[in-house]
């Protein structure tokens, strides 16, 4: 008989055996599927939670540097030119002193602070095109617009000295500017520098906050450094690094622990199932099956069942993760877990099979 036909006969017998022992086969499939799904579900959830936590810490607020200057500190908008030469800055903006404005239509209505604003990246605030006469146009945040009584962002405001400004649009206020709310700004170009009360710099990465702060401080060019305060969320940035490291190692050890626990469980149950079949192995050996044949039968049978289990487990876990809105771990990871689960199942079955196959067939056949 050719090797191929011999192999086909072994596969046929292994599948027939699996079919003839439905309870043991179902237990094997369920155990391996459970192992696979448990690992994938816990891992998938961990990855999702990790991303959520880091996302919440990783806002621009974590990376912001805020400089407040007194009116007579001597900080003006030319600082932005100097900041342009510093690496590691994602965004920078300067805001003038607040002056109250009210809706031109209702004199005596709510007063809202308005500031001159300088930035080369005003699009970050939702301002895409600057008007020709810049210092006569203002943008206001929805909060400020509500205060002014012009929710449609149409109208004009007037300041205490009687100068009026046209409301041109609605601002998108990023989190790191929320402390300036209600925010009304009159965007300025670098041709119209003026006194800066608040300078905000966003670093590219959390770990750049400290060096960028130092660099920013050195280019402020203020007449009296005592009248300037610089605040950062450096501690938060450091915390983020710590949390990331902790979550990473937590995720990894969770996978290892879950895998180890389920593997021990699966191994114990498969071991038991194979031990129950010692009499069967004894009969086969007594009738002329070689040790190698017994082992290949068991390998094929358990391998096929474990593969079915791993496939079912992976699919179930993927459906579960998708249903709960968790991110899927990559397919290579799913494949690796499925393969590892199958291997664990096969090894768990192989150890008792080897022991059984090596003994005298009759001692196995006559086990109580």
């Amino acid at each position: 008989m050719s090797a191929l036909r011999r192999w086909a006969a072994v596969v046929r017998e292994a599948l027939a055996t699996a079919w003839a022992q439905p309870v043991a086969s179902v237990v094997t499939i369920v155990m391996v599927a459970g192992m696979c799904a448990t690992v994938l579900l816990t891992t998938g959830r961990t990855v999702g939670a990790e991303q959520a936590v880091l996302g919440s810490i990783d806002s621009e607020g974590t990376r912001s540097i805020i400089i407040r200057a007194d009116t007579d500190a001597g900080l003006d908008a030319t600082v932005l030119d100097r900041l342009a030469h510093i690496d590691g800055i994602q965004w920078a903006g300067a805001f003038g002193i607040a002056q109250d404005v009210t809706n031109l239509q209702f004199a005596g209505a709510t007063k809202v602070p308005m500031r001159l604003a300088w930035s080369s990246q005003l699009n970050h605030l939702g301002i895409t095109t600057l008007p020709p006469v810049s210092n006569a146009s203002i943008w206001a945040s929805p909060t400020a617009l509500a205060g002014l009584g012009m929710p449609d962002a149409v109208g004009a405001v007037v300041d205490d000295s009687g100068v009026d400004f046209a409301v041109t649009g609605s601002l998108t206020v990023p989190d790191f500017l929320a402390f300036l709310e209600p925010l009304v700004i009159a965007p300025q170009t670098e041709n119209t520098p003026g006194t800066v009360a608040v300078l905000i710099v966003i670093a590219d990465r959390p770990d750049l906050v400290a060096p960028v702060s130092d660099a920013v401080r050195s280019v402020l060019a203020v007449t009296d450094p005592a009248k300037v305060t610089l605040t950062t969320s450096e501690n938060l940035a450091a915390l983020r690094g710590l949390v990331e490291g902790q979550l990473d190692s937590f995720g990894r050890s969770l996978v290892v622990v879950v895998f180890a626990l389920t593997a021990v469980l699966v191994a114990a149950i498969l071991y038991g199932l194979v031990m129950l079949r010692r009499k069967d192995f004894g009969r086969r050996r007594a009738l002329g099956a070689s040790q190698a044949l017994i082992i290949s039968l068991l390998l094929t049978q358990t391998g096929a069942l474990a593969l079915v289990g791993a496939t079912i487990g992976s699919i179930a876990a993927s459906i579960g993760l998708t249903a709960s809105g968790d991110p899927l771990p990559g397919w290579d990871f799913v494949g690796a877990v499925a393969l590892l689960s199958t291997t664990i199942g096969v090894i768990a079955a192989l150890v008792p099979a080897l022991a059984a196959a090596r003994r005298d067939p009759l001692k196995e056949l006559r086990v109580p």
Partner: protein
Amino acid sequence: MVDTIRLAARDITFGYVPTAPILSDWSADFHAGEVVAITGPSGRGKSTLLYVLGLMLKPTAGQVQIDGTDAAHRRDADRAGLRAHQYGFVFQDAALDATRTVLDNIIETTLYRGTPRKPAIRRAHELMDQFGVALRAGAKPGQVSGGQAQRIALCRALLNDPQILLADEPTGNLDPASSDLVVDAVHAQAHRGAAVIVVTHDPALVARCDRRLEL
């Protein structure tokens, strides 16, 4: 043909625990074409002797010779091959696989010999007809009587036309008519050149054997 020594026990010693040997320096020759009855009281070691002669238990001393060469101390794979190709064995308790059909049980050894299934299935049906166990397809050993199981085990043992047929109480559960079928089949196998050894308490079977060894 009767002069050919097919199977020989040479000074066999065996004990499940070495301190209490069940067989001590036991020797016998079994000729091709001969049916030998082994008798003796219960618990004396008749089944054990068959397992040693059947290469399923290794004697602590002595040889089991097949056609003049020792087989008892060969590699495990070689002994398995001899069991599959040269031997037919009927266990005292039939030892059928309860999870598989009767037909699957009878053709089980084709896998161990590496021979094709189709002719084996054809031969299995002939044997089942011959021994009156042509049950419905798909019947399992749990659904047959003790006597039927014994005859199914004999079908399995005869499937590969063995040169050595060892049968442990093959008529133990059978009525006289079925017993006669078994005795006829055993003699037919001997006429085909096999050495046949039956362990039995059945005086009718002993009477029809060529020789009797008391253990």
